[in-house]
């Protein structure tokens, strides 16, 4: 365990410096890239802050699709999350399996469940990458 500031606190400080102190002072041709740099630091800060809980949450969501029998309703979801987290390779393999099963049409008859779980998993990614993006949901029927 490191001393404070923690990783997310360091990155928040970096993002604030890039945005507030550096951006107004760089030549105009570098301004956009400096803003991108600040945004990258802010994304990484949010990811550190969300920590392993977010990764475990995604793993649990996806395992409900790929391996529904594995999730024991009688057991504390937290315990499952901890087990899922132990093996990051498995997490990646799970995503690979899900992606190819979808392409093969194996979720055609569990469509609603697939959409719902992936919406949750995507909302969790947006919470780190672009907070607030999921406040708008356009189903393409209006306007």
């Amino acid at each position, binding site marked *: 365990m490191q001393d404070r500031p923690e990783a997310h606190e360091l990155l928040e400080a970096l993002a604030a410096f890039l945005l507030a102190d550096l951006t107004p002072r760089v030549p105009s041709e570098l301004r956009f*890239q400096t803003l*991108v*740099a600040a945004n990258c630091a802010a994304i990484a800060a949010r990811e550190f802050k969300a920590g392993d809980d977010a990764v475990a949450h995604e793993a649990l969501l996806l395992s409900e699709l790929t391996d529904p029998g594995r999730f024991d309703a009688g057991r504390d979801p937290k315990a499952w999350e901890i087990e899922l987290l132990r093996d990051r390779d498995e997490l990646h393999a799970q995503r690979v399996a899900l*992606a*190819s099963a979808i392409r093969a049409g194996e979720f055609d008859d569990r469509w609603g469940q697939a959409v719902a779980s*992936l919406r949750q998993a995507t909302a969790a990614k947006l919470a780190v990458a672009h907070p607030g*993006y999921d406040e708008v949901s*356009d189903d393409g029927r*209006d306007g």
Partner: protein
Amino acid sequence: MRCGRSLRIVTDHDALRDQLASYAESKLDGFVEIDALAPLQGGASRELWAFDAVLANGRLPLVLRRDPPGSDDPAGREREYQVLRAAHRAGVAVAEPFWFALLGGAAGIVMRRLEGEAIARRILRDERYEGARTRLVEQVARAAATTHAISLDELELFEQPSGPPAEAAIGQLEGELDRIGEPHPALELGLRWLRRNLPQPRPQKLVHGDLRLGNLLVDEAGLVGVLDWELAHAGDPVEDLGWLCIRSWRFGADALPAAGCGTRDELLAAYAAASGTEVSRDELRFWEVLGNARWGVICMAQADIHLSGSRRSLEHAAIGRRTCEPEWDLLAMIADPVGA
């Protein structure tokens, strides 16, 4: 480092001016000199230079769009030049193309410099473009319709289309996902939906391929020019309309899908009026979902350029984290497995 970079720019600048001068001398009557050569920002994939050709009887404002060193694609630039010429002849709002040129070993296009605003957020928010915003959807629909009416036979450098474009596009995105090798279940679900909801194939047309706010030059009166024709191809014309509507190109004006300025119904009505072609909302939905899937894959591919080490770039790296935006948008559109 800064010193080295400045030096390179100066060298490029002088050499380029000399090359442009010798080109202009052979092409323009009464040519005197190249003046006010300066790099422009805005082209993500191409270099842009503004300059004036000073003539005995006036000035010709021009712009050079050129491949950056190291990613030279003369065949691509020549095809783009040919498309631009055809579009200009047909009366699409575009910069008049003058020459296809090989300058300093890199292929480029010299065209008339148009005055206008290309920064989407300004077009959507500045008061001076208020009137333009009320006209833009109709004008873009007309530009699309005029483009789609250009005969593919005019464009001899074009590959002849084979097979339905929708299926080809889905297959191409699946191939790109496999090549990059990062699993994306949400994009796969979108592609699966597309395979189950294929539209009736339409006759293939010349498609702009990147028609969106951000590639539209606008002034107070509205559309001045459609930019960036490098992705033009033979395909389904509705592709252009779907791409125009995806949320990433609304730049925050989320309630107005058509370039952040109008509704989908307004776009389809304007397109029908300009082209005589009725497009259904289901068909538009198909191409909008495909547009989101495509934008997601492009985000991944951009990040991959950085991650694979082929070109290290903060901008490319950062865009990888935007993949989940079109994923979110397409998931919202595909809740019904079949039918729209």
